[in-house]
């Protein structure tokens, strides 16, 4: 199963028999069976036929629209599943409930522990690096999580941990062509930030799909507060995956020099930096490879790919909220 990325502007996405058919300039540029597809992402501008839309909805294939630079525009999702019990449990845990606090603790702990393990591993691989200050700061943010029973304070710990992590992100980049000062968003004004933002957009498409499959209402989250049109639960669940997938892919593409400064474009007025079509394709390939790579799931004790892990974590979340399990185990990898 794979994701289709339509990166050609003005392409026409249609349906022939049971296949997704993409045309540009009267030529076929892609023709794949719908049974091989588990997501469609349109980057930029494309026309999509009504028949293709209804077929995608019927087959529960989410369709996401991103701008050319990878900014998230929206998703066309099939009807939320009829599993009302999951959604009921989700709504009952709203606010400062014990369950919500436990989940927020889980999300923050998962994210920060993955940050810490990520740094420790990089340090082990490269003896010139000295990240002990940042690791200590991260550990100081992790330690009080268990005893903090207030969501706003947990958000504070998350912020402190992220700051400690991004403070040394530049040292992880091992080429002289790129550097990173601090996280800049909306719009990202340097190549590294633009890759991070692009990666997080792609991850969000995947997680939102998983959250939907598990039967949740993606707009009600616990760590992220409610805001019109923001899929807070998808963003919550995304936290633990950020370093595991996006940060790892960004660093490996840069360090392997798969992308060089000529792969980036700068918009004159806003200073927004984005990838060229060729660079974007290479980055998407790296991201897809990472998603398909396998590891041993620490809780279930069996092999799975990150793509499967999205759904597994969503289901574990559902089990916890429905009271079937005692705890929500965030995905933490050594």
């Amino acid at each position: 199963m794979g994701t289709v990325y339509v990166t050609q502007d003005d392409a026409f996405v249609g349906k022939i028999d049971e296949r997704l058919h993409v045309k540009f300039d009267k030529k076929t540029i892609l023709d794949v069976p719908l049974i091989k597809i588990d997501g469609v992402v349109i980057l930029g501008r494309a026309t999509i036929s009504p028949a293709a839309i209804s077929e995608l909805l019927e087959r529960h294939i989410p369709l996401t629209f991103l701008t050319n630079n990878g900014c998230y525009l929206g998703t066309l999702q099939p009807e939320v599943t009829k599993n009302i019990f999951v959604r009921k449990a989700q709504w009952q845990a709203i606010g400062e409930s014990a369950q919500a606090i436990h989940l927020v603790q889980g999300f923050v702990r998962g994210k920060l522990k993955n940050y810490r393990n990520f740094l420790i591993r990089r340090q082990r691989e490269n003896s010139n690096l000295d990240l002990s200050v940042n690791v200590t700061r991260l550990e100081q943010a992790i330690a009080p999580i268990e005893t903090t029973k207030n969501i706003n304070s947990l958000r504070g710990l998350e912020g402190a941990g992220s700051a400690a992590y991004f403070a040394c992100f530049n040292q992880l980049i091992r080429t002289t062509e790129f550097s990173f000062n601090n996280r800049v968003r909306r719009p990202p004004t340097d190549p590294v930030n633009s890759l991070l933002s692009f990666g997080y957009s792609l991850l969000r498409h995947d997680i939102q799909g998983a959250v939907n499959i598990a039967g949740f209402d993606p707009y009600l989250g616990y760590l992220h507060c409610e805001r019109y049109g923001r899929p807070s639960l998808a963003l919550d669940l995304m936290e633990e995956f950020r370093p595991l997938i996006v940060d790892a892919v960004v660093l490996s593409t840069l360090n392997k020099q798969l992308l060089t400064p000529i792969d980036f474009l700068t918009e004159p007025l806003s200073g927004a930096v984005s990838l060229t079509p060729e660079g974007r394709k290479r980055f998407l390939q790296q991201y897809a490879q990472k998603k398909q790579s396998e590891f041993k799931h620490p809780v279930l004790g069996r092999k799975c790919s990150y793509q499967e892990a999205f759904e597994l974590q969503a289901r574990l979340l559902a089990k916890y909220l429905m009271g079937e399990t005692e705890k929500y185990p965030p995905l933490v990898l050594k």
Partner: protein
Amino acid sequence: MNVIVSYDISEDKRRTKIHKILKSYGQWVQYSVFECYLTDTQYAKLRSRLNKLIKPESDSILFYFLCACCVGKVERIGGEKIRDDTIFFAECADG
């Protein structure tokens, strides 16, 4: 399951139709030969669609099933490249 579908259809129009259906379920590897990786439901659906179309007196479709350990033993010389199902790009070859 992994299925090799091979067909022999006497009439051009019907052959084209069958070819079109099979393209939605697998990859065309040679004239009249498809390789399909399908679940049980998908196979059942494909089979019933083809069944409705053919004329049993003059046409034939054969399904060869490959077990998991045999899939790795397929040897190929030349011909179509096997499609990578993990990611699909829709973009113009020169753009």
